[in-house]
C-alpha cells in the first residue's frame, strides 16, 4: 500500500512517499520502503527531492550543520559536493546558509542544486527530518547519528602562518641584537688592587680639599714600597693602610675644612716623606724637643678628654720643634685621632715632593683617657 506522509513546519514541509510492509487493511502498519521525499520551502520555487540515499545524506549534513550553529564550531571536514557527499551546507552572507545538493533532474541526470536558506528555514528543515526520524510509523529503521566533534577535528584558533609570525619575529630580533652587540668591543678586564683604588681616592680628595700644591705622588703604592725597601725603617705598607683608613674616615672633612687644618692624609703623607729624613742624634736636643712637644700637646689637648682608650702615636718632630707627621701605633688611635691635637699641630709641607733634608726626631706619644700624656723618644732601630 502506498503511504504518503506530510511533516509540515512554518518554513519547510516534507512529503514522504513510500510503501507500508504490513497487511493492506492495517492502517497502523509502518512505512518501511521509501519511494520519494520532497522538501518544499514556502515562498521558494525550488524543491529538493530524492530517494533514501538523498534523505540520509541530507539528514547527516543538516544535523552536522545545525550542531555547528549550536556550538559555534564549524565542521572542518566540510568540502565541496562530491559523489560521497551529495549534500553540503555552508554559511553564506547576510546570516543565510547555502545548501548545495546533487539531485537527479527530470531526465535522471545528476545536477548540483543550490538553495540559499535563512536560519529559520534551516531549522525547520532539520526539524522536519527529526520529526520523521522520531515517528515510529515512518521508516522505523532510520536513526540519528549525533556525536560531538573530536578534539583533533577542531582547528586551532590561529592558522599556522599566524602562529609562525611571533616566533620568527622573536628569532630575528635575537639575531639583530646579537649582531649589534657583536659590534661592541669586549670590555677590558682590569684587575685593580684595593690599595691602588683607595689611594687614588685619597689623591682626588686631597686635590679638591687643598690648594693643589700638596698633591702627593709619593703616596702611591709602588713608591712607598720602594721607600720602605731601601730604608727599612717604618713599614710603608702599614703607613699606606693608615692613610687609607684616615682618608676614608675623614675624607668629607678634608674637602670641607680650610687650608691650614691638616687632614689625616696629609699628615700621613708628611710622615712617609720623613722616612728618608736624617735623625736628630744629639740627646740634649732630643730632650728639649721632648719637653716642648709635651708642653704643646698638653696645652692643646681638649678638656675634658673625648676618647676612652689609650692612644699611641709615633710622631716626627723637626729640630725647630715643628710637628712634621704622625702615625698610629694602636687601633683606638686611628678612630680618635680627631680628639687629639695632633692633626691641627702637624706642619703641612709646601712642596711634598721636596725631599726632607733637615733632621727629625721621632717620639712615641701616649694619650691616656684621664688626660695624661706621655712622650718618649724612639731610636731609629725600633
Amino acid at each position, binding site marked *: 500500500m502506498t503511504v504518503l506522509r506530510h511533516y509540515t513546519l*512554518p518554513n519547510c514541509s516534507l512529503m514522504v512517499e513510500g510503501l507500508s510492509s504490513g497487511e493492506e487493511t492495517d492502517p497502523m502498519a509502518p512505512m518501511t520502503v521509501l519511494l520519494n521525499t520532497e522538501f518544499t520551502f514556502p515562498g521558494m520555487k525550488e524543491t529538493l527531492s530524492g530517494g533514501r540515499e538523498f534523505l540520509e545524506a541530507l539528514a547527516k549534513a543538516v*544535523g552536522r550543520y*545545525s*550542531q*555547528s*550553529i*549550536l*556550538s*559555534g*564550531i564549524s565542521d572542518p571536514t566540510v568540502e565541496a559536493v562530491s559523489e560521497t557527499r551529495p549534500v553540503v551546507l555552508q554559511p553564506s552572507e*547576510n*546570516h*543565510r546558509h547555502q545548501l548545495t545538493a546533487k539531485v537527479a533532474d527530470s531526465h535522471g541526470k545528476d545536477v548540483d542544486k543550490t538553495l540559499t536558506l*535563512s*536560519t*529559520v528555514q534551516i*531549522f525547520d528543515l*532539520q*526539524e522536519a527530518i*527529526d*520529526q520523521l*526520524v*522520531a515517528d515510529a510509523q515512518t521508516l522505523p529503521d532510520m536513526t*540519528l547519528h*549525533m*556525536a*560531538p*566533534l*573530536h*578534539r583533533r*577535528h*577542531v582547528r586551532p584558533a590561529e592558522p599556522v602562518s599566524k602562529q609562525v609570525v611571533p616566533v620568527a619575529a622573536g628569532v630575528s630580533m635575537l639575531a639583530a641584537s646579537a649582531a649589534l652587540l657583536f659590534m661592541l668591543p669586549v670590555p677590558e678586564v682590569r684587575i685593580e688592587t684595593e690599595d691602588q683604588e683607595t689611594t687614588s681616592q685619597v689623591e682626588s680628595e686631597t686635590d679638591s680639599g687643598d690648594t693643589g700644591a700638596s698633591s702627593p705622588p709619593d703616596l702611591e703604592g709602588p713608591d712607598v714600597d720602594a721607600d720602605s725597601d731601601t730604608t727599612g725603617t717604618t713599614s710603608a705598607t702599614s703607613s699606606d693602610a693608615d692613610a687609607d683608613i684616615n682618608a676614608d674616615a675623614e675624607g668629607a672633612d678634608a674637602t670641607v675644612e680650610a687650608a691650614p687644618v691638616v687632614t689625616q692624609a696629609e699628615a700621613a703623607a708628611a710622615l712617609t716623606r720623613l722616612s728618608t729624613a736624617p735623625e736628630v742624634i744629639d740627646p740634649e736636643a732630643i730632650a728639649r724637643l721632648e719637653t716642648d712637644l709635651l708642653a704643646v700637646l698638653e696645652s692643646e689637648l681638649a678638656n675634658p678628654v673625648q676618647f676612652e682608650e689609650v692612644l699611641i702615636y709615633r710622631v716626627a718632630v723637626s729640630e725647630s720643634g715643628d710637628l712634621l707627621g704622625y702615625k698610629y701605633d694602636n687601633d683606638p688611635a686611628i678612630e680618635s685621632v680627631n680628639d687629639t691635637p695632633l692633626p691641627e699641630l702637624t706642619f703641612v709641607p709646601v712642596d711634598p715632593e721636596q725631599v726632607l733634608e733637615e733632621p727629625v726626631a721621632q717620639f712615641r706619644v701616649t694619650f691616656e683617657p684621664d688626660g695624661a700624656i706621655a712622650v718618649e723618644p724612639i731610636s731609629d732601630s725600633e
Partner: protein
Amino acid sequence: MQVDSPPAQSSPLILETLPNPSLPTPDCPRRVRVDLDLLMLAIEALDVAGSEALLKTVEQLALKAIISGRVKLWLIRGTNPMRRHSQRSPMSIDEAKALTVVVCFLAKRLTVLIRQLLLGYQQLSDKQLGLEHHFRLADYLQRFRSLFKARMNPQRAGVIAYSTDDKLNELAMMLLTRLLFCTGTQGPQRLWSSLFDGEVV
C-alpha cells in the same frame, strides 16, 4: 529482607536521554559552563519572568535532586568564569544535563517569540535596516545587554571582547539562533552534543 540504607539515588530518568561524553576530565569544560549560562541569560532577556521560570521548570521536570533551589542554581551558574561572582567550583555532568534539559524546555515554550524575532532580524538585515526598527527585537537586545553588563565581570578577557553594544547584539542574536535549535524535537540531544564539540577524546 531488611535494608540498612536507602537505595542509592539514581539520576532522574529525563537525563538518561543524554549520553555521557568521553571527556578527559570528570567535570564540564569551560565552554559548557559559559554556553549554558549565556543561554539562560538569553532566556531571561526574552522572558521577563525568566529566572522564576527556570526554577519552576526545575521543579516541573523533577530535577530538584540536582538543583535543589535558587541558591544552588545561582551557584551552578556562577561556575561561568565570565561572571562577576564566579565560583571556582566545577560543574558536574549531571548539573550540565539538568540545565540543558531546562534550557530546551523553556526555549520550546518561547518558540513563537524566538521565530518572530529571528524572522524579523532576517528581514531587517535583508533591507539593511538597524535593529532598533523591530520593537520586540530591540527590547530583547536591550534587556540582554543590561543583564550581561550587570552580571559579567568587565575585567575578564572573555567579557572585554563584548565591550561594545554591537558586539553584545551579535552575541544576543547568536544565542537566539541557538535557542531556536534547542526548540526542536531532538533539541536537548542536539544541544548536549554540541556543547562538547571539540572537547571529547
